[in-house]
């Protein structure tokens, strides 16, 4: 399965992004790593160009809330078929209620949202989600 990954917006957490890359490869995914400082449009375009099954966006500085608002609009502009949209990391800035964050990102159009969740737990849930979808 193909996964497009990267860090969204003005976020340079390159080590965390690399760990995600390695973890996914070890689980047998084909990874397209767009690196840090990536715009949402670039993520979507990479999914189209690679015909990826999963888009996994990460955000460590909490800026994703602003950068990912247009996901639903961008999803409506192309037939993304069975692409799974996932986001994880530290998704809020300052004192955020985790109970509110997840529904917010789901409303943006993400299928899987992980706020301050262990990487391997999140990837286990991704695999379970993909298996259930298949």
């Amino acid at each position, binding site marked *: 399965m193909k996964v497009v990954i990267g860090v969204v917006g003005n976020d340079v957490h390159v080590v965390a992004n690399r760990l995600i890359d390695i973890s996914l490869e070890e689980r047998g995914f084909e990874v*397209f790593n767009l690196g840090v400082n990536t715009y949402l449009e670039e993520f979507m*375009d*990479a999914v189209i*160009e690679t015909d990826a099954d999963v888009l996994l966006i990460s955000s460590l500085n909490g800026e994703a809330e602003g950068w990912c608002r247009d996901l639903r609009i961008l999803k409506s502009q192309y037939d993304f078929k069975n692409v799974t949209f996932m986001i994880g990391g530290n998704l809020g800035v300052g004192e955020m209620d985790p109970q509110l964050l997840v529904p917010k990102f789901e409303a943006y159009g993400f299928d899987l949202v992980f706020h301050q969740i262990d990487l391997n737990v999140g990837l286990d849930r991704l695999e379970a989600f993909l298996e259930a979808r298949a």
Partner: protein
Amino acid sequence: MSRLFIDVGSTYFKVSQNDSIGQYFRDFNKNIFDDLSGRCGDILSQYTKEDVYICSSANGGLSTLIIGLTNSYSLKYAINIAFNSGINIIDTVLYPKIQRETPPLEMIDVVIIVGGIDGVERVFDERLLRYLEAAHYQNIVYVGSSSDRAFLEQNIENIVILENIISPKLKIQEEALKTYLTDLYQADIVGKEDIKQLYAITANQIFSTPYIVNRALPQVSNILDVADPFIVIDIGGATTDIHYSRDLVEDNIVSQSGYDRLVFKKLGVYKSRESLVHTAKSNEFVFELLEHLNVTENILEEQSEKATRILMQLSIFLVLYKVSKHHAAYIELNLETLNSIVLTGGITKVLSDEEAEEIILFFYKKILRFHRAPTIILDRAYEIWTYGIKE
């Protein structure tokens, strides 16, 4: 035995021998060969065909239409390669929206189709074929996913298939398309009847002048008093070319070439004067610029020496504007970091240092909000090209 170097421009011949350069205004009532032989017959007779090297910018380049799957990869990569091959982009089409697009009315020299990394299937379908049926083009090249090659070969006559410009890891692979486009440009120049005749006086390949000038860039700091980073703007009768170091581009595209170029087909001051005036009039800053130069827009319609000087100043402004952050359609150069701007081509025969500096300072103040401009150097001997052709 020394060698003879000739640059055939749209307005002048430049002839270089023994480190001296002669310039001859072209007689448009004669073909290039007869005109050159008439003016430089004595010089030509001193050299064998093997010692004569010719480049030409008399033909203003090729036009292209690019159809790509996404803005961030297919179109971005193809636009970058096309510009750097000296090709003028007439239009771009984002493939998912192709049904809403109308093909350009004019004849396109080459259509470029790109989309998907290798292995991605069914990127293109009947919608592409219907669009192309309504388009007018002479060449068509496919540089997208290998899985769609068979479909396109079966359905599009004379399509050329090249290596995908998008690597399996989404990086740019420019060599195959760049070579194809450069060769096409070259073939277009050589294919012109006027240029073909020049093989009677040279046994060497005739190159395009933008290619030759670009080849000279690593040596410019040895010829002129320039400080890195710098750009070279070549403003001639038919085209305006800008040559730059890749260090000035912040596009995250990893490329092997150190220097690239853009050829603006419609910004020349003689042969493409009308389109230059049209481009100027549609620029939001031009009227302010004309006021700054103490002239009215009527000057653009005049046929006077002063009008030509103003048009040349406008060319400088427009070409800088087109590569600045204020104009998204072209490659964006980091003009804020420039230390030198070298002006070459016919413009150096007309504009004074003060006139060139005035317009560039206006651009830096008005558009970039800077209080100073880079150092301006005019290649008055027009010798940059001779270093490229000597390579």
